[in-house]
C-alpha cells in the first residue's frame, strides 16, 4: 500500500500535463506524461498498482480539462492489459520493450479517446488524426519514456533493497 504515497505524484503529473506540457510541442503535438508514467509504472512494478492509480489520475485530469469526466479513465484502461501481456513475455531488459509498449498504449489511448469525443459530439477529424496526431504523439511519448522509466526503476530497486533490511532490523 506504500505506493499510495505516489498518488500525489501522479496528480502532479496530470496537473503539469494540463498547465505546462502544451507549451512544449514536438512534431506539432504535445506529450502525454501521465500515460507514460502509468505505463512505466505498470511494467516495472506490475499492473496491480496502476489499477488504483488509473481511475484516480484519470478522473482528476478530466476534472481540470474540458473532457467529459471518465474519458481519460477509459482511454488509460489499456495500460493494465498491455502490462499484463508484457509480463507474460519476460526479456533480459525491460527498457526497449517498454518503449514499444508505451507507443502501443499511446495508439490505444488516442483511439479510445477519439471514440469518446465522437460519442459526445466533439469528434476530431478521423482521417487526418492518425498521421497528424496519433503517430507523432506515440513517437513523442516513446521518446519521453526514459524520463519516467529510469526513476521508477531506480525507486523500485531501492525500495527492494531497503525492505529486507527493515525486516531484519524490526
Amino acid at each position, binding site marked *: 500500500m506504500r505506493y499510495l504515497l505516489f498518488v500525489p505524484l501522479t496528480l502532479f503529473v496530470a*496537473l503539469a500535463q494540463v498547465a505546462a506540457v502544451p507549451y512544449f510541442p514536438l512534431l506539432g503535438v504535445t506529450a502525454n506524461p501521465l500515460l507514460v508514467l502509468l505505463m512505466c509504472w505498470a511494467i516495472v512494478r506490475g499492473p496491480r498498482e496502476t489499477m488504483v492509480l488509473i481511475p484516480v489520475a484519470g478522473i482528476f485530469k478530466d476534472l481540470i480539462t474540458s473532457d*467529459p469526466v*471518465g474519458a481519460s479513465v477509459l482511454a488509460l484502461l489499456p495500460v493494465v492489459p498491455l502490462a499484463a501481456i508484457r509480463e507474460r513475455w519476460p526479456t533480459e531488459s525491460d527498457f526497449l520493450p517498454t518503449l514499444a509498449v508505451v507507443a502501443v498504449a499511446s495508439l490505444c489511448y488516442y483511439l479510445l479517446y477519439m471514440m469518446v469525443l465522437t460519442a459526445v459530439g466533439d469528434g476530431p477529424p478521423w482521417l487526418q488524426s492518425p498521421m497528424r496526431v496519433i503517430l507523432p504523439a506515440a513517437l513523442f511519448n516513446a521518446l519521453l519514456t526514459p524520463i519516467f522509466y529510469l526513476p521508477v526503476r531506480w525507486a523500485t530497486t531501492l525500495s527492494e533493497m531497503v525492505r529486507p533490511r527493515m525486516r531484519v532490523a524490526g
Partner: protein
Amino acid sequence: MRTLVWLLVVGLVALVAIVLSQLGALDPLKNGALTVASPLERGLRSAASPAADFLDNTTNRQDLEEENRLLRQQIEELTAEIASLKESQLTAADLAGLAEVEKGRPDDRFLVARVIARDPSNLKERLAIDRGSSDGVAEGMVVMSQGQSLVGVISKVLDDFAWVTLITDPNSNVNAMVLESRAQGVVSGSLHGGLSMDLIPQDAKVEPGNTVATSSLGGNFPQALLIGQVAAVQGESQDVFKKAEVEPAASLSRLENVLVLTSFVATRLTSP
C-alpha cells in the same frame, strides 16, 4: 480474471461518469477541482513559460523576445485597425445603414479574463479562463484577444471558470469574408491549429495578404471582427470553390489574457 473484472467495472463506471458529465451533473465537481488546481496551474505555467520561450528561440535573447512580443501586439492592433477602417470605408460607400457598426464598438462591454490552462489532448484547441457564469459569462459569447481580433467562443461555462473553443479547433466554423473583395466563406480550424477559409466562390478575387474578418452571417459573431490574413490561396479553375490558408491575427498559442464580449448575444436562427 481479476484484470478482466477490473476492466469491466472501471470501464462501466467511466461510461456512467461520461453520461453524468454530459448531463452537467458533475459541473460543480469540475468547478471545485479547477478552483483548487488553478493557482497551481498558474504557477506551473509561469514556471514553464521561460523554458518554453527558451526552446522556441534558443538563439534569441530576452530583450529580442520582448521586442518581438510587443511588435506582434502592435501589428495585431494595427491590422485590426486597418480591418476596421477598410470595413468603414467600404460600408460607408455601399451601405450607409451599417455605418454604426464600423464606428468601433463603444457600446460593447468586455470582461478581461486570464488564461489558466490549455487543453492538452492534441485533438482539441481549447483554453480555460478564470471567469464563469458568476461573472456573467455564457455559452456562445465571443472571445477576443487584447488586440481585438477573434480568439474563439465560450463553449462550456462553470460557476467560476469557462472553456473557450479557439477558432483553430477542428470543430470550429466561422462565417467570414475577405474585406478587400467582400468574398464570403467559412473559416475552419484544423489539427495542429491551422486556419483555412473554405467555400470561397471561384470567381472571387482573393490574394495573399488580404484581410479576413467575421461576416455576421449566421448571427454568431459581430461583423468585421478581425480573424487574420490570407497566407496562400489554393484551388484550380475547374474547382467550384477556392480555399485559402489564413494566418490568425492573434497569437493563439501564447495568450495570457483575453476579452470576453459580454454585450453581444449570438442569434439562434430557426428555420422559417
